[in-house]
């Protein structure tokens, strides 16, 4: 791995996306409290804020190509391919979820802008998290991001399930944060450093055989804290309840952003320390991956609630992505491709859910999408595309990502994991095709009310579905990008 050039002090460009997001949130807050202003003004402020954020990410690319991998603010913020990838993904998530979140918030009576402020705050935290080199910064970013998510989950105060989801998410999430920070402190005890790179160098210095027990346990606890966020089994128990209870319009954002940032951080820690400690955790990760694939597919097959089904499918997908990350460098690049395509499908599915189910409602029985095809053909067709993508049927990006990932795993000789994941794919065909059956084939006696889509919704769903098919047919460019992300570790 190439040396990290340490630019001492202060470069605001590195954290400019975070600043832009926080700034936008504060301006919105100001407008909400003081000046009576209409929707359009707030919407344009948010939109401009997002554009500025995207521009800041663009500036970071410029800085990266100038300085290479570099660390800032006395080794707290890191600028590398992973942080750029994370920034881009988070900006995309924001852009795609902006309208559903806004529409959902309009239906809340007096808290219209609250949701969007929380969204921006959460995104700023997760931006910080993917940028962090320092473990404390990682924790701070994670907490800023997560606390806003807890509030988002319970924003619909009239709904009991929403309250339950928020409380559950908060209690279990704080427990996970405790575990994470305890792990950080244990790592600090051994080497007196917080930087991800420094402790890896420290371990390399003492030699892999004499890694202090505190470090091993500390790193393990950090992983557990992060695995909680991506809902990998056996840390998945919160996901179905939170997905089900939260207002449907927010779930796409909540699930995708936490997953993206945690996966990127896990990938970075694994790659940095891969030669030193990862082998001690092989059994641990093996258990996590296998139980994710098995528990996820098993429980997803028996769900009657679509949001719970998606939560358990997310557990399976987490197992897939994690298996690539812990396998090695090429596996990580495949996982990054997988992550990107999966996030697109996930957001698309939840936008469709929020249109069918109403933005704020919590429960979403599988029966309620009956007759979607007769109601709105566009929605039914794009629903099929996303579901086929999640199942991994050829001609969608889901197949390509699974194919590349499994190819890499096979090259790493992880036959057990490959066979378990292949079996979970078969189960996936069962539980992903069931909603499609309901939506397109099953006839309904009482036709659901006609769904009217706005132009913006058409645009977002079409874009996501097109991308899902595009990356299934012409995946080469995105695969090259995913290999560029890990190029330094090859």
């Amino acid at each position, binding site marked *: 791995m190439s040396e990290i050039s340490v630019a001492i002090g202060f470069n605001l460009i590195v954290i400019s996306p975070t600043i832009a997001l926080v700034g936008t949130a504060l301006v919105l807050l100001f407008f909400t409290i003081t000046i009576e202003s209409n929707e359009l003004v707030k919407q344009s402020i948010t939109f401009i804020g997002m554009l500025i954020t995207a521009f800041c990410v663009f500036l970071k690319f410029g800085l990266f190509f100038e300085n290479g991998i570099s660390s800032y603010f006395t080794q707290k913020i890191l600028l590398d391919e992973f942080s750029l990838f994370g920034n881009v993904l988070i900006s995309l998530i924001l852009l795609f979820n902006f309208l559903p979140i806004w529409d959902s918030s309009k239906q809340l009576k007096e808290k219209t802008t609250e949701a969007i402020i929380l969204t921006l705050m959460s995104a700023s935290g997760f931006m910080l998290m993917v940028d962090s080199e320092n473990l404390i910064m990682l924790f701070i970013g994670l907490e800023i991001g997560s606390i806003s998510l807890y509030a988002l989950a319970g924003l619909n105060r009239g709904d009991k399930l929403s309250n339950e989801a928020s409380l559950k998410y908060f209690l279990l999430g704080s427990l996970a944060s405790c575990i994470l920070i305890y792990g950080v402190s244990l790592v600090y005890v051994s080497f007196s450093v917080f930087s991800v790179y420094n402790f890896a160098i420290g371990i390399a210095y003492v030699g892999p055989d004499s890694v202090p027990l505190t470090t091993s346990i500390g790193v393990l606890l950090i992983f557990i804290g992060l695995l909680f966020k991506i809902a990998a089994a056996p840390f998945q128990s919160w996901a179905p309840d939170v997905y089900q209870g939260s207002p449907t319009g927010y779930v796409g954002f909540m699930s995708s952003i936490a997953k993206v940032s945690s996966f990127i951080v896990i990938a970075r820690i694994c790659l940095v320390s891969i030669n030193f400690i990862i082998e001690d955790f092989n059994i641990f990760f093996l258990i996590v991956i296998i139980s994710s694939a098995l528990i996820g597919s098993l429980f997803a097959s028996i769900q009657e609630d679509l949001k719970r089904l998606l939560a358990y499918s997310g557990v399976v997908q987490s197992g897939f992505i994690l298996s690539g990350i812990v396998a090695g460098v090429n596996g990580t690049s495949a996982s990054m491709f997988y992550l990107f395509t999966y996030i697109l499908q996930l957001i698309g599915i939840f936008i469709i859910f929020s249109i069918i189910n109403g933005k704020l409602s919590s429960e979403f029985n599988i029966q309620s999408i009956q007759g979607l095809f007769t109601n709105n053909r566009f929605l039914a067709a794009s629903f099929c595309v996303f579901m*086929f993508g999640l199942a991994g*049927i*050829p*001609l969608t990006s889901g*197949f*390509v990502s699974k*194919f*590349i990932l*499994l*190819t890499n795993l*096979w*090259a790493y000789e992880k036959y057990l994991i*490959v*066979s378990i994941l*292949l*079996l979970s*794919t*078969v189960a996936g*065909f*069962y539980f992903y*095709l069931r909603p499609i*059956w309901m939506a*397109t*084939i099953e006839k309904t006696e009482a036709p659901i009310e006609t769904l009217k889509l706005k132009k913006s919704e058409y645009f977002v769903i079409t874009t996501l579905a097109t991308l899902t098919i595009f990356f299934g047919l012409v*995946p*080469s460019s995105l*695969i*090259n990008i995913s*290999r560029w992300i890990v190029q330094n570790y090859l």
Partner: protein
Amino acid sequence: MISLIYSFIFLPVINSILVFLIPDRRKELFRPLTIYLSLIPLGLCLYMFVNQNLKTSFLEVDSIPWITAYGIDLIIGFSGMSFLLITLNCLLVLLSILSVNQEHAESKGFLGSIMLLQAAVNGVFLAGDLVSLFIFFEALLIPMYFLMGIWGGSNRRYATIKFILYTVFGSIFILAGTIYTGVLSYISSGKFALDFESIASMSITTSQSEILFLLFTFGFLVKVPLFPLHTWLPDAHVEAPTAGSILLAGVLLKVGAYGILRVSIPFFTEGFLRYQFIIAFLSVVGIIYGAIIAIVQIDIKKLIAYSSISHMGFVMLGISAGRYLSLEGAVIQMINHGITSGALFMLVGFLYDRRHTRRISDFGGLKKSMPIYASIFLFTSFASIGLPGLNGFVGEFMILMGSYPTFKVLTSFAAFGVVLAAIYMLWAYQRMFNGQLDNDENSVLTDLNSKELVAISPLLALMLFIGIYPSFIESYVVQDVSVIYESISNLIGVSQ
């Protein structure tokens, strides 16, 4: 030439899009337009037969870089055998659209799905590398899912999910085999070259060859289907709409056997030699089992479904024997079975449209009310049984002749399959068409109309043509078969 080959995949897709674009209120346009559109691929097939030299072994025509970072290219090509199967596919698609009843003719989803299925199946036969083979192999599930799910019978949900899960369970083994081959090719050449030429030149050890053979063959055998893996077939056939059944029996079952002939045997011959007896044994069990179960069926469509298991058992016996004659017979039997079973399912569909039942005991004496139908059914039954002079005889005879030197005992048992076929087909014919016309509903049935006669007659002509002049088909499969046979005979060092 390249664009011609591509058009076999893309024309049906474009056709289906065109059909989807017609507004719903012009229902009367759907069927005629689809018929004209599906004439184009068939016309192209005939053009190719006349103007191109199709009597070749597999010929790579074009390659598209797909994943450049891994060096995976998608290859497209053709051979004599794949061209025969494509022609069969295009013909059966046209005829099944000709034969659809009024309800299906007014649904553009149905007609469009059939064309998408045609595209996917053509893709399987044209694929020149393992990835595109797998992509098309799996992609044909999507139209099949909707065909069976939306327009199927009363128990369609169970049948569809069973069909999908069985096929997917098989296909994950093919995927694993593809990945394993890719990794092996990466180790030897530095890129994931999965095209047929690179795999053929790849050197692999005996144990690797055995594992790969098992992975691929298992996946394809689910699709054939071989005896213990067959249980999805009767359910799928009974629940699928007539056009779906025709294509399922006519071409989808051939996809599995085609995969074994194209991939499993030539590339992993050592594995084939190791496991050929097991496959032959299971095929013979399937021949006898399918025939015996077919005898006791009360549903005529299920009877034909079980007869398919028996007939595909013959194909697999011929393939597993690995002799020149038996391989050739197997390919010819694949074509024959596509024609005969397609015709039988179409005939059953005609009867079902009139009477809305398929129970054999509901019929009797139909010969009096539907004389043309009865004679056509008898003709097709004879073809299915393997009466000399009709197509079924050629394939089965070649398979039995060719397999006998390799598996003497097994082939002797397999020969009983022909006798049993006569029992189930003729007994069913006797119960349905002979005897008294004692049911009033049967006495008012109308005979085949001109539209239905147009749909069935090309198949009848083909049965007779292949029965009398089998060398025509044989000349197209010779090259493919010699490639497969050479790969076997090079290893065992025996010449015939």
